[in-house]
């Protein structure tokens, strides 16, 4: 749970003009959501190879697209965190 919350805090305040920061958000977002670059390519409407360039810091998209990618990842992670929260709240 803690890594999810930490990611959400960092991603929401990230300065995405920094390509390395964008790479971090993509890399961590994919790890936490369990998405492959193929899944992510579908979500971000791009080639899986492009996603792998992003997560490895080789390239980044236009700035407005970086924020859109960040928002999609934040939404996914938020959903996972909410689902985990509910599971924690229900007594066994």
């Amino acid at each position: 749970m803690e890594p999810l919350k930490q990611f959400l805090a960092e991603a929401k305040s990230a300065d995405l003009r920094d390509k390395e920061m964008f790479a971090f958000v993509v890399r961590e977002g994919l790890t936490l959501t369990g998405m492959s670059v193929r899944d992510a390519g579908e979500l971000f409407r791009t080639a899986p190879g492009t996603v792998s360039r992003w997560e490895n810091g080789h390239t980044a998209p236009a700035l407005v697209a970086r924020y859109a990618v960040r928002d999609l990842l934040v939404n996914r992670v938020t959903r996972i965190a909410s689902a985990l929260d509910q599971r924690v709240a229900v007594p066994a």
Partner: protein
Amino acid sequence: MPARLHFTLATPVDANAIFDLVYKDPQPFLKSATLSDVQDWIANGSCWIVRDIGGAGIIGACNIRVPETNRYDEPEPAEFGGIFIHSEYRVRGISDALGVLALASYFWDNDPESPNPIPIISHVHVQNPDPLGLLARLGFVFDKNVPVPRGTPGFEHMPVDENGQLWGKEFRWPPEGRIHLFREMAKLLATQQIDKYGVCIVPALAMVEPELERLATHLEGLQTQQ
């Protein structure tokens, strides 16, 4: 004008229609491919299509291969795989529009402001003049002739030289070509029309006209500084 042509990324359910359109009837200068190859391209690349929702289904396809990379190696160039348009839809600007969409989306996603983006290249058989006009209009420039390694799958049917060697022309994309490309893409998004057709375009994520224009202006500035 209602949108009749839809430009978008292909999904796995489009594989059969793309195969039927492009590869079912072998062409002398077109790399041969199986349905499974097409499914792989859709899954692993960015395969852009045009769909006529007036009835004909998928009437155009264009693929850009972007090899996956890792943190330590320099990324390989992307490869523009050409455009195929249904014979009844040619010479109407549809192929140009599809090329503009595919390339602008690629560059939008890959360091659009950089003076030195990762190269994108394209190959054409040395005896095939058909795609040269389109490649030039899109912004590709001829670089050099390159031999195709013997035994490369998909090229077995193509003409070879007297030594049995298959040759291709390699084209590259000059970075300054993005200025015109981004403006053409902005125009396409603004007019939503090609020839007599209304079009609906689903471009790369978050792509909007003002940002395309800003990028074009930024790249112009870089060009002036050089």
